[in-house]
């Protein structure tokens, strides 16, 4: 698009907010981090477009990890929780119709994966993955069990805080993001080298979901709120208001 067009491209990524590629405290990054500077260009159509995922893709139990892998009449073991929030962009607008995929360990900290050797047992009724498409205002919600912390071979005694992995699509491939959600009050958060790649306490806080007693369902499931922010598009005069204003 030209200068007069509607499309002004995506706001540049704030690299001060994002982890560096080379973070020796997280050992695997040492040989997997590009060493040359990234080459910067403004976004083009190739980054401003993105695949379309229809609501028809999503099955009834896809956003219910307690049941989506369980035998009929059974359910996954562990503390039942609801994770909810909004997918927003940097201009504060909700991002509707976006695909969110999430995966996690079971309540004992064990992933259902061939290469996973942790002694904690598998839960036969827990697969560990789910997906959904965000609503009109970018909101989302899913049910799961609270994952357990787990040990991993980085240092001699390293443990990941409980976390849920998120893969997020927006409306432009420039917004593509994978991140992790942590739980308020987890004492392992400040000890973790993967959390440690984040550059500020603010960045850690932005990935830490608070317990929300107002959304918690009595006698059923506690609720945690997790908003996710994707890169924003440069706005034109007519669109530079926050949604709802």
């Amino acid at each position: 698009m030209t200068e007069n067009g509607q499309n002004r491209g995506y706001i540049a990524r704030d690299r001060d907010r994002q982890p560096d590629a080379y973070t020796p405290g997280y050992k695997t990054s040492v040989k997997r981090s590009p060493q040359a500077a990234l080459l910067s260009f403004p976004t083009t159509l190739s980054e401003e477009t993105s695949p379309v995922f229809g609501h028809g893709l999503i099955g009834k139990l896809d956003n219910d990890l307690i049941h989506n892998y369980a035998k009929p009449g059974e359910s996954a073991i562990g503390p039942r929780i609801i994770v909810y929030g909004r997918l927003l962009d940097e201009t504060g607008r909700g991002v509707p119709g976006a695909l969110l995929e999430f995966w996690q360990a079971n309540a004992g900290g064990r992933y259902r994966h061939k290469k996973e050797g942790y002694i904690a047992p598998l839960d036969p009724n827990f697969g560990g993955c789910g997906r959904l498409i965000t609503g009109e205002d970018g909101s989302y919600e899913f049910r799961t069990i609270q994952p357990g912390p787990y040990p991993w071979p980085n240092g001699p005694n390293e443990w990941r805080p409980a976390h849920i992995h998120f893969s997020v699509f927006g409306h432009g491939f420039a917004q593509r993001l994978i991140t992790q959600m942590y739980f308020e009050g987890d004492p392992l958060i400040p000890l973790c080298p993967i959390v440690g790649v984040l550059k500020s306490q603010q960045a850690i806080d932005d990935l830490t979901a608070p317990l929300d007693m107002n959304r918690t369902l009595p006698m059923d499931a506690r609720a945690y709120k997790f908003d996710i922010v994707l890169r924003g598009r440069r706005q034109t005069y007519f669109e530079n208001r926050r949604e709802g204003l």
Partner: protein
Amino acid sequence: MVQKLEYLKESPSQTAGPYVHIGCMPNFSGIEIYGGSDLGRSMKTGPVKGEEITVTGIVHDGMGTPLRDAMIEIWQADAAGLYASANETRGKADPNFTGWGRSPGDPETGEFVFETVKPGRVPFRDGRLMAPHATLWIVARGINIGLQTRMYFEDEAEANAEDPILTRIEHQSRVPTLLARKTGEGAYRFDIHLQGPDETIFFDF
């Protein structure tokens, strides 16, 4: 003090970790769910227009070792240069081509595979045509933020020579890291190096 700008900040990225396939390709990782099919395994939903091609490659770390736990995504225009995107305004893309694919590295060799079509040319911001290319996005354990690169085609020398991005790369000796080699009829090879003398150019779009 001045007025406040009310922008939010992009959520920080965290590594996809070693089990990204559980979330993004669960059936590949052995979790039978979602009716047995993983998103992005096929980029074609019927007969497609244009030249059908197969792209294979391996992502190597700084020691030259193949990554066997990576996930690679591809996003590209159809043969006419149109994106199958809700915000494509220039026309309607091939309805049988999604333009988006996802491949795990092979658990033994690390090789990724995309059965796709040769993309058409897409305009740059100023209207000049870019050379045919696909966007690749690479995540894996040890990668803190998804790496974005582009795959161009070695046999598109004329288009490459006028591509607004390729021609503006300062170290022209690195441009070949962005070129897929033709290895046979409809077959291209695109290896990616995260580090070392052949380090692939990664972008900050």
